[in-house]
């Protein structure tokens, strides 16, 4: 009886190991689940980080490219403006040449025109008095 009690009170090493094994076996699915969750979260975090970096890089490169393209556009427009200004300058010179009294006089002579001997001028006061 005493022995039986002793057996009950003090389990053998083998039974303890078995118990531990059983306990461990009961805990394993939960730990595995926790570990899996951590790996997934880390993976997602890393992927998200990489994606963020990629997006930021794309944005940066996109903006830089846009600025660069804008710069080329500005340069092209500046060249166009300069060329238009140059053409405008040439047209101004052409207008000045056509307006030149010397040219007009020589063309008039070529057409057989002669200088007016007199230009009749009506005095403003006399006109006002008549009215």
């Amino acid at each position: 009886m005493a022995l039986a009690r002793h057996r009950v009170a003090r389990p053998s090493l083998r039974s303890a190991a078995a118990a531990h094994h059983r306990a461990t076996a009961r805990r394993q699915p939960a730990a595995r689940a926790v570990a899996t969750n951590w790996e997934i979260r880390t993976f997602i975090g890393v992927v998200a980080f990489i994606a963020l970096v990629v997006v930021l890089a794309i944005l940066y490169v996109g903006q830089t490219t846009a600025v660069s393209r804008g710069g080329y556009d500005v340069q092209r427009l500046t060249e166009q403006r300069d060329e238009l200004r140059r053409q405008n300058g040439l047209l101004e010179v052409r207008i000045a040449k056509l307006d030149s009294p010397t040219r007009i006089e020589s063309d008039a002579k070529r057409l057989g025109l002669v200088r007016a001997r007199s230009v009749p001028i009506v005095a403003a006061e006399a006109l006002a008095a008549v009215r």
Partner: protein
Amino acid sequence: MLGGGDTLDVVSSRRVRVVFWLLAFATVLLAVRITYWQTVGRGALLERATSQIRSDLALPAHRGFIRDRNGAILATTVDLRSLYAIPGRIADKAGSAARLAPLIGQDAATIQRALESGAEWLYLKRWLSEEIAVQVADLKIAGLGFENEPKRLYPNETVGAHVLGFVNDLGVGQLGIEARYDALLKGTDGRLIVERDPANRALAIGLRTETPARNGADLVLTIDLVFQAAAERELRAAVEKEGAKGGTVVVMDPKNGAILALASYPTFDPAHVAQADPEALRDRAISWSYEPGSTIKAMTVSAAIDQRVVSPTTSYNDVGYAIIGGRRLNNALGKAWGPTTVLQVLERSLNAGAVFVASKLGAERLHDYLGRFGFGEPTGVDLSGEQGGLIRPLAEWYPVDLGTAAFGQGLSATPLQLAAAYAAIANGGTLYRPFVVASRRDADGEQRTAPVAVRRVISSETAATLRTMLTSTVDNGLAKNASVAGYSVAGKTGTAQVPSEDGRYLDDVYISSFAGFAPAADPRFVAVVVLDEPESRLLGTVTATSAFRGMALDMLRSIRVQPDRQP
């Protein structure tokens, strides 16, 4: 005893150590090299790197416009296309030269020689007209290209050449306004430091340092293009008719000294100065002093009337000559006129009469008045190369000098000085400093030139009296040819002898001139016409007065002056 595996381990370990030391050595070498390039060689490396991508450009400032008083362009700068060649890229040099020759106005053989000269790059023709440039571009010859280069253009060609001057190939103003106002006109070049891509396009990102160019100021002159064209037309006709050595015309606004026209003949084309005769570059209006002759009689009479020693009706007995300082001074042609008034002295241009008036006035006062009228010193006009003429100091005058100075011999003046002196009579007695630039406009705004009244020379009453006397000189005297139908004209002719190098006067060589203004009652312009050694000698004044009349007609019509007389 080692097994096979142990032997391999030992060999591998040794190889690893060798590789390690090799790598370590290479690393040290690289570190040393990097340290060198980052310290001692940094500058050279940086320079090499930046020179490949960075360009340092001068941003040329635009040279300012020159306009007449009504805004017409007299001078402007435009970028024209210059044709260059890279001979190494031209496959058919002979064929290309033959196609280019008729367009750029050069011999095909000359072009071919240039292309085969061994040069890597060369200009074939600079500053092409736009039409020619387009035709050359249409040829599509590989190895030819265009570069824009600034070019000063003068749309009115020779008109106003002496006032404007010109700009040389380096962009530096020479003569006239271009020289006098070069610093203002040319502006300040800017600078652009920028990085470029392999296609030589400026990068928007990266280094960019820009100091913008400051364009030159635009100048508005007092010159009136219509007046200037009329003056040059009449002057050319007069000089060619007379076979004269040259001539000059000055037209001035008597109310403020503004120069409305200034012409010299022979003249030049500012766009083709290399082909001009050096004499043609001389602005006779300001840099040629001559003995003015009888046109000075107006000043002599002004001084005497202002000092109240004579009046227009004061008379003397003209015997055809005057004796002064033991010398006999004759009238032109030696004619005796008998009883003559001071008014008739001007009408008939009598030397003896001028000596009579000067004797009443005295040498000191005549000398003083000539100085007050501005003779003997530069007028201060804003043009380069002005001469001051010469009036010897009073202490050096011989008694005869009083007589000769009275009719404009023994002293010298420029046409501009004479115009300024007549302007003083025309405006009521005030001598103004002549000026050509009416205003200048730049980024800071517009600055206008204020007229400068130098001094009062004669009273307004004296000036009014002289205007009447000079009007009578045109209406009734020798200057009749200057009269303009419908307008009162005042003026005086001058025929001056020309001194030789030994101090004596040359026989039968004269300078003919006319100085006058219109309308006489309220003058709108003063004009001086001078012809240098006309072939008709004493009759040269007739041509000078004709030139005045031709100009006056155009000018009075141009500014719409109402007639003050019945035609």
